[in-house]
């Protein structure tokens, strides 16, 4: 396996993690290492355990077996807010904004958290005196046009693209070390996706380790430097995008009989 060749210990390590829901195995014996600065893609057919992996890492479910380490510390079974406080944040596949609040007030909540107080919010803005102003700055940076008053609109009136960005902004406000994106491209139009990709790349440049769960393979392979494939809760392959694309089992599980190159062009 690859991890041994890397001198630095992994940021996030899953050892033998399993999860069963009353007889149904959602994850079985998954091992995973995420190193600092990685962009790891997790792909797999529907129901293959991708979101369960995220839930297990972020503490929203307790794994039935195995251990999870963050920077060498065991975080298995910790509460979601404790894990978020350590610096692992996530977006939700089904977006969870605070619908009754305006967009910028959505960001006041993560900025109020103990972690944001400690780190000073995204990019260490430092003085957290006026959270509402900082919230609007973050939103502008992530693509909310300040001129058109979009940050001030009630969240329930915003289109999906903005909600996805808002999810991302909520995570970024915490100054995360690992950002887990659960299908942030799904439900977006091509142009919206095209504008999200540079954003992810910029975050990578900022030194945030990113785990992406995605069905949009072309965009994912554009940004990811490692990819893990899950099928029926088991890890099928892990490696660079090229290695994964070349693997026969992946083609079999994920794409059926189609040629992967064709899928890549249509994706």
């Amino acid at each position: 396996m690859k991890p041994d060749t890397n001198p630095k210990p992994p940021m996030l390590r899953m050892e033998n993690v399993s999860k069963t829901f009353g007889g149904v195995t959602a994850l079985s014996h998954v091992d995973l290492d995420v190193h600092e600065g990685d962009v790891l893609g997790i792909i797999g057919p529907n129901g293959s355990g991708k979101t369960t992996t995220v839930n297990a890492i972020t503490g929203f479910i307790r794994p039935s077996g195995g251990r999870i380490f963050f920077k060498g510390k065991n975080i298995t079974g910790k509460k979601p807010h404790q894990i978020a406080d350590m610096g692992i944040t996530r977006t939700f596949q089904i977006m969870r904004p605070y619908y009754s609040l305006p967009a910028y007030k959505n960001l006041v909540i993560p900025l109020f958290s103990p972690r944001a107080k400690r780190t000073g919010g995204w990019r260490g803005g430092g003085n957290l005196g006026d959270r509402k102003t900082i919230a609007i700055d973050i939103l502008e940076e992530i693509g909310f046009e300040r001129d058109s008053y979009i940050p001030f609109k009630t969240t329930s009136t915003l289109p999906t693209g903005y909600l996805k960005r808002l999810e991302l902004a909520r995570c970024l406000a915490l100054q995360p070390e690992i950002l887990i994106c659960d299908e942030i491209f799904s439900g977006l139009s091509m142009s919206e996706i095209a504008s999200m990709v540079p954003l992810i790349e910029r975050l990578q440049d900022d030194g945030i380790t990113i785990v992406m769960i995605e069905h949009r393979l072309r965009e994912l392979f554009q940004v990811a430097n490692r990819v893990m494939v899950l099928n029926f809760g088991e890890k099928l392959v892990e490696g660079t995008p090229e290695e994964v694309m070349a693997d026969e089992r992946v083609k079999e599980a994920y794409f059926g009989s189609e040629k992967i190159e064709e899928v890549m062009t249509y994706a």
Partner: protein
Amino acid sequence: MEILVYGTINSVSLALMGLGFAMVYGISRVPNFAHGALYIICGFVTWTLLQKIGMPYGLAIVLSLAANGLLGILMYRLVLIRVRGMSISEIISSYAIGLAILEGLRYGGFRGMTYTLPVFMDGMVIIGGVPVDYHRIVMVVIGILLVAALWVFTHFTRLGLALQGMAQDERAALMLGIDSDFMAMLAMGFGAVLAGVAAISILPLGNIVVESGYHVLIMSIAVCIVGGLGSWMGAFFAAFIIGYAQILSVVFLGSHFQMVVALLAIILTLILKPSGLFGQQKELEDRV
């Protein structure tokens, strides 16, 4: 032996009280806080038909059960259907209706110890050294028959299956052509009839008093929560747990503790396993 016999009787009467509540919640997700009021009003209607109008007992029972079912249906049709889905409004409005019925009855002069229903059968029998009157045995039989009938109804009849389908997933049921409002209305009617059956089989053992409406409401909620809201089989088993616990507490601690046991059971269940003993699949969405 005494504990065993009275525990069983107490458990069955709790199950009778709780079944209606469990059924309505299970099918339509409406917590029917007017359950206790429906129970009491059925007792009073039967009493009125029997004593004031002088009907035969059997006819009075059938008529009052029908009236109770109709009342339940009306309650759903006129009030609850408008607040469907807003759980807090459902609780508040059904509770307010129940309160109005109970306090209205109290104002109407139904208080004191003067109202009793006749027992089905006089006389008693000695079971294992404990005297038990026939009526209590009939009540146990009614309870067990009712549970069996409910099981057959929900598993083998078209209507029962439709109700079960709606209980599992209302939207999917809608797509399959099940009219969910109609079904919820029926469920409410059934729930009211079940409350009536409970009233008619339990009330002859004591007096009809308005206070017992609140008592029945609390006990049925206790049974349903311990068994898992919405699972009427769970409610049946939970009735036995609470029933025996109550009798034990009466024997060893004193009669004041009867209610404390039930309330403690609710609180403990909600803290330890909020989905109840038999409501497994809900655990995720309710807690996580």
